[in-house]
């Protein structure tokens, strides 16, 4: 069983999967904000990326920057096999939690 990942870690890891080969810091930040439908701080995303790397859920590599970045390198991230397994388990656990319930839940007054 892979290590349990938190909600925000899932959001970032799913963003890596969605973005594929375009998953670098700025794109990940925008993707997470779009999916969570709220403003997310850069600090939260970078700290999570650092944690995901430390846990072995993601890998990164540097690539050359562009003029608009002042030539600064981009760091691209990819999920590892362990990261994908952890995501699958998180999704499976969530699905299992909801199985058998009609969605959306009705409010009882």
């Amino acid at each position, binding site marked *: 069983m892979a290590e349990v990942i938190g909600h925000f870690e899932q959001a970032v890891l799913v963003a890596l999967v969605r973005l594929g080969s375009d998953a670098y810091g*700025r794109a990940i930040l925008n993707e997470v904000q779009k999916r969570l439908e709220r403003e997310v701080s850069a600090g*939260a995303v*970078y700290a999570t990326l650092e944690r995901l790397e430390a846990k072995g859920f993601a890998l990164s590599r540097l690539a050359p920057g562009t003029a*608009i*970045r002042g030539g*600064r390198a981009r760091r691209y991230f990819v999920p590892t096999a362990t990261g994908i397994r952890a995501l699958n388990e998180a999704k499976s656990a969530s699905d299992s939690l909801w199985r058998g319930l009609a969605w959306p839940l009705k409010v009882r007054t």
Partner: protein
Amino acid sequence: MIDEQANPPRLAQMLLHTALRPHDAESTAGDLLEEYRAVRRPSLGRLRADVWYVLHVLSVAGRPVWPFALGLGAVKLGLAAFMLLPLSGWNPSLVPAPNVSLLDALFFLGAGYSGARRTGRVATGVVNSGLLGLIDFAMFAAYATLGVPTLFASIVEKPFILVIGSIFLAIAASFALTLGAVGAAVGASRAEKLPS
């Protein structure tokens, strides 16, 4: 219109560079600069784009400081709840000013140590403890305002309160930076092995 020469506030750029590990500095600074130039500056204008940039820099630079700020705040609240603050027997202070106590010193040393250990740079530790000092002083101001709700309103009538407050802030900031530098010097000598 995208302006590829537009630059965010220089001080914020310096803060970002100081706070980050060398491993991350270039890519993170590049990401924020790219978003600033490509999206925020054209859509928000200079002032609001600068505010956006500074807030995100603070979110990056301030993240390692929050555990210390929360810890310090929790300990002080706990002590205040038991009416021990500002008793000085266990928490001696060299001068009769706020945030210059043994308890504060321990947290400033810790913030300086952890910041420098993380990046291998003394400057990161000093920035960490400086930010912690500011948060600590804000907590003191909030605590003082709770005790004397008319404190800020009375500044207009008695501007000398502002002078005293500024002196307290200068003492507290110097204390935080000095202790942070000591912690950072130790932390930098024991820096984590950084990825390339």
